[in-house]
């Protein structure tokens, strides 16, 4: 089976600093892969390269067999990779509905001339998008749906993350990358998050998730596989139950001395 997303030898240098070094990853259709590692290990940098915000110094990214290395971020988004951000980046001065409708940007078409000369058509397209956005928000959380016409800037942290996921789903992406989705969430929110990911995957066959996460409860329960990154290199990959026992992984998290005692 060809992987849906394949990362080979991905490397980025900032001046003399090698932030990510020759990382290989493969994400299969309908799979959840968690990326773990200490702070500053290069996990978010890896996401930024895959989503086109940074241009890799070396290595390749393939989506469904197509080489998307070095594409601009908006084309990568249109090709089917959606993402959320560690410090959730919503459009704060727009309503929840608007936020999710913007997520459908690459699935809608109207340009300036359509808007000016065929307003009916442009409006109908946007109304349809708004309706779909409402459904997406309702599926994620009825509470959010009730607040769909309020501004995103007023949402509490957990809801911001939920809305970001709804926005990522809106693009009909094939791969969704979540950067620390559970940060700022309590246990109940995290459970709801996991339930959301499972439900969404059941509804959309083939959709895969790449998740950066620190909450070990989530890492133990949700993903099919786990990859560990430390100092920009992938040091382990496999089942979480196995990976957590590897000495190198314990070293990375606890330091060498502590790992010896563990």
């Amino acid at each position, binding site marked *: 089976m060809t992987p849906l997303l394949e990362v080979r030898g991905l490397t980025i240098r900032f001046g003399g600093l090698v932030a990510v070094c020759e990382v290989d990853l493969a994400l299969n259709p309908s799979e959840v892969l968690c990326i773990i590692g200490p702070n500053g290990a290069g996990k978010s940098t890896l996401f930024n390269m895959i989503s*086109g915000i940074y241009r890799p110094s070396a290595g390749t990214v393939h989506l469904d067999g197509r080489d998307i290395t070095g594409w601009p971020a908006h084309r990568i988004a249109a090709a089917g990779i959606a993402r959320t951000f560690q410090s959730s980046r919503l*459009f704060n001065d*727009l309503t929840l509905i608007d936020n999710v409708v913007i997520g459908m940007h690459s699935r809608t078409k109207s340009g300036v001339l359509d808007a000016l000369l065929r307003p009916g058509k442009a409006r109908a397209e946007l109304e349809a998008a708004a*309706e779909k956005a409402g459904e997406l928000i309702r599926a994620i959380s009825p509470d959010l749906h009730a607040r769909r016409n309020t501004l995103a800037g*007023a949402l509490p942290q957990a809801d911001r993350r939920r809305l970001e996921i709804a926005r990522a789903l809106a693009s009909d992406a094939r791969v969704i990358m979540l950067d620390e989705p559970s940060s700022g969430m309590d246990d109940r929110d995290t459970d709801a998050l996991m339930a959301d990911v499972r439900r969404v995957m059941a509804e959309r066959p083939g959709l895969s998730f790449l998740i950066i996460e620190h909450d070990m409860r989530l890492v133990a329960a949700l993903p099919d596989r786990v990859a560990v990154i430390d100092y920009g290199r992938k040091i382990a990959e496999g089942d979480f139950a196995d990976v957590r026992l590897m000495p190198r992984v314990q070293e990375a998290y606890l330091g060498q001395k502590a790992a010896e005692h563990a």
Partner: protein
Amino acid sequence: MADTAQATSALVRRNGPSADLAIVAGVELGSAILLWSFLLSDRTAVIVALLALMGGIFAALQLRPALEERIVAAFHDRKRFATLLGAVIVLIYPFFLQGSGYAFHLLIVSMLYAVLALALNFQLGSANIPNFATGASYGIGAYTSALLALNFGVSFWLTLPVAAVVATAFGFLLGFPSMRTKESYLALVTIAFGIVVHQLLNNFDWTGGPNGLVGIPAPELFGHSFARPIEAFGFRLPSQANFYYLSAALVGLSIVCAKRLHESRVGLAWNALRADPLAARCQGIDVVWFKMLAFGVDAFLAAFAGTIYAFYVSYISPDNFTFLVSVTIMTMVIVGGMDNTLGVIIGAFFLTMLPEKLRIFSDYRLLFVGVVVILFLILRPQGLFPQRARNYGEHR
């Protein structure tokens, strides 16, 4: 927020559809009368009293958000009536101006500035692109049409679209280098562009240099020259009335464009890159393209205003299109309310007329304009009419 919504719906329930009509008619007629008295009075005491009245109205709106919501709801439900009444008021307004050429002139200039402010609003308001070159696009439009009319005898109606296309091309040209910069640096690039255009107009021979272009012929429509007064129903309107109606039509067109773009995928994309350009890119928005589009649309509308201005005053010089003009337009957008069509128009009217009406203070005029603007911004920190959220699913 929820409280406001409840209060509003309670209000809506309390008074029926006829109340809506009364509110719409009251607000529109009231504004028209306010503007009329402001335009025609030259006594300082009256002007100050009117400004105080306006300040009071805005303070009331700020303190009682439900009031504002109620008015907005009434206009929303009675859109057709509001538009029709507004059009009628604009149509018959000249008949109440007592033939005052000065009042006409102020109105025409205000309307042209309203168009310029609406043009800039696509950038500054929708997409947060600080473009200080709207005055340059205005000038390019004016010069293009004036040169075509003077050198080739092209009719006004043909120069309109040509000037718009030329200015749009320049807009894209400016947009291109601007894409490599953002925020303050982007502002600097546009300032440079504005100054370059001004200097070129000043130094080329074929633009008439600092003397500008003189004797731009008045437009004609169905054999009626715009230099002649309008005579209708036994009334006689001064020749400026021609340009009054022309500018009003252009304002109408600009409002339609602004509404349509705002309520479209393009407007949303602009708003997205205003809020967070990086997140916008990750939603599939081609940030470079949409910024360029904003430059293009801004230049397109500004050129229309420039063309009408050139034919109206029949004499243009580089000094009509300085950097200061761009700054004034930007102030209009900020004072009126970013990304709010009505607010931007009011901002343009307010800031065009205020300096004229405060002439009594002669040398200190601009100081007082500044004070009044600051006072209004204290009353309404987000501009006179702040941005409003979009509505979905409420159109038939």
